[in-house]
């Protein structure tokens, strides 16, 4: 965990709504999400599969395709709403000012092009370099992300690279044009544990050396604890809690967050049963009215609250920067 002082916000997401219009109904994958990322800040976006975290990140780059559509909200990058710029301007931003890396690094690279040509491509389209110059810069980037013998490696095809190596190539490609924001969608999920640690270290160095802001999207709380400055927890398309990392792990407020943290088996912990959160993630087409977590919430039962199933709680501040979406922490809860 690092505690660097973070600069002004560069990305402000407000009330983002991304829906998928399928044959079986409208899937409200992202339903009113607010997020802010500051300069040089590492934000962790945590949640189970299907909670909408990937869709959120794809929405930032406007990469949502049919049948999905961004239907509401704003995404301000340095004050400019990305949802209202032209496609051409958006293309200039992708890969150049905001970059993204994905989960399966080998599969995310085009198998018929070499690593070098794919990195060089970023220079060719965003800085107008010729192939030769692009390749030279690619070698430099590979060196920067810690790949040994980069002059040879640029000629490698993706299937010749190991998982960790491929992810480094992807990172090199993402950072090539010097973006201010890097979105990492489950960057280490498909990798070996020891390699995971290396990639996390790499990302931290990137932030420290280049000042790049990073959004790390993951379901792995361990990663978030390692590297994030602040954490936002997502559930069923909404942010349910947000705080700086230390606080979140020390004093989790939302019952879901507490469930997540509580279900991590700790070395030296002597328990008979692993705490799990009962029930399942709700169907995003047929959402229950009221708080989305209510059906699974033990705290609600114990506190005897009835408004949870009828009204939807708003995100409210608890302690300075710490916000929660839960009636337990609101005045006059019944």
């Amino acid at each position, binding site marked *: 965990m690092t505690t660097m002082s973070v600069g002004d916000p560069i990305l402000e997401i407000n009330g983002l709504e991304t829906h998928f219009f399928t044959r079986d109904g409208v899937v409200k994958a992202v339903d009113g999400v607010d997020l802010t990322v500051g300069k040089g800040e590492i934000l962790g976006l945590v949640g189970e599969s299907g909670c909408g975290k990937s869709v959120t990140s794809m929405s930032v*780059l406007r*990469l949502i395709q049919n049948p999905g559509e961004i239907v509401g909200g704003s995404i301000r990058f340095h004050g400019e709403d990305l949802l209202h710029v032209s496609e051409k301007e958006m*293309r*200039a*931003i*992708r*890969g*150049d000012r905001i*970059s*993204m890396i*994905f989960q*399966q690094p080998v*599969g*995310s*690279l*085009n*198998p*018929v*092009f070499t690593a070098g040509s794919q990195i060089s*491509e*970023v220079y060719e*389209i*965003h800085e107008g370099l010729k192939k030769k110059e692009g390749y030279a810069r690619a070698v430099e980037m590979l060196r920067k992300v810690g790949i040994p013998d980069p002059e040879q490696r640029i000629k490698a*095809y993706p*299937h010749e690279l190991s998982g960790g190596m491929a992810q480094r190539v*992807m990172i090199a*490609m993402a950072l090539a044009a010097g973006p201010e924001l890097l979105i990492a969608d489950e960057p280490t999920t498909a990798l070996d544990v020891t390699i995971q640690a290396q990639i996390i270290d790499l990302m931290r160095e990137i932030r420290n050396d280049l000042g790049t802001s990073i959004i790390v999207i993951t379901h792995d709380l361990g990663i978030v604890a390692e590297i994030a400055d602040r954490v936002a927890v997502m559930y069923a398309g909404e942010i349910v809690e947000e705080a700086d990392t230390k606080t979140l792990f020390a004093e989790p407020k939302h019952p879901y967050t507490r469930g997540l943290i509580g279900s991590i088996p700790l070395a030296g912990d002597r328990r008979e049963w692993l705490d799990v959160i009962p029930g399942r993630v709700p169907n995003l087409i047929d959402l229950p009215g009221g708080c989305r977590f209510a059906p699974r919430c033990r705290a609600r039962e114990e506190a005897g609250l009835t408004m949870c199933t009828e009204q939807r709680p708003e995100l409210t501040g608890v302690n300075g920067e710490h916000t929660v979406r839960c009636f337990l922490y609101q005045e006059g809860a019944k």
Partner: protein
Amino acid sequence: MGRFLLRRFISSIPVIIGILALVFALARMIPGDPCRAALGERATDEICDLYNERYGLNDPIHVQFGIYLKDVATGDLGESFRFGVPVTELLIQRLPTTMELAAAALLIAVIVGVPLGIISGYRHNSKTDVATMIGANIGVAMPVFWLGLMLQYIFAVFLRDTPLALPPSGKLDAGLIPVPFYEMWGLPENGLTEFLSEFTLMNALVTLQGEIFSSAFLHLILPAVALATIPLAIIARMTRSALLDVLGLDYVRTARAKGLRERSVILKHSLRNAMLPVVTIIGLSFGLLLGGAILTETIFNLAGVGKTLFDAITSRDYTVVQGFTLVVAVSFVMVNLLVDLLYTYLDPRVRVS
């Protein structure tokens, strides 16, 4: 990659030997007496004895096969009973016609089929897509001979006095005799030059015989279109399906995330990958083309390998059947080898071996 090539080549050898054996066996199994087929029903037994001796037809089978192999290796495919000329001579005369037809059909199939597939795939489920796929389904279901006959009717009868009229049969208008290029340029007349000159379209083009060229061209249109239809439909469907497969893959998402124009995403990143299975399909289509050529040439009265082969089968001209079938099968094997080569060149994942 050279090693891979060599390996593939070596593994085709047993197949080729198998082909030789099969062709040899099949030709021998065709009912009927070769002697009487060649010399007529009234040949006497004595004459046939002499005939059989002469052509080694009394030797034990393995000896005949051995002689056959030796002959093939030295390029001697025997003599046609019907025409009285060496089989190779017939091949030289007639193979180019089929090759031109097949090439034209393949060209049409690829040039029309691939873009159609791309457009359909990209505009998945749009009206264009649905229409194209319905068309492709119908195209695949059409019998070549029926299509050929229908085209003949439409363009030679129905549109007879319109500028769209097309000749329904033959290679050239009656009375037109092309001058082979070797004659025009004073080159020696041998097997190779004769072979090359039988490519009527090419020959007319390089010697600038305009009238011949346009006549040959017009005569080629209908048979080529008829022959091209099924491969076209298959190629369109395959391209579409391959493109759709690729568009759903992760690296296409990455390409977009890098800020590439949609056109680049499709043409540069997706197509290279989608074309891989399509290339193989094109190679396999070659077999369809060769099979279809038999029917097309019969309908359009073109003297190519297909028609000659069929006539030879019905008239029991064994050596022609043997020789031509062999050539067809071997060229099919060669084409597939080439396609494999091309595939290896295009797909780096396959190169490691």
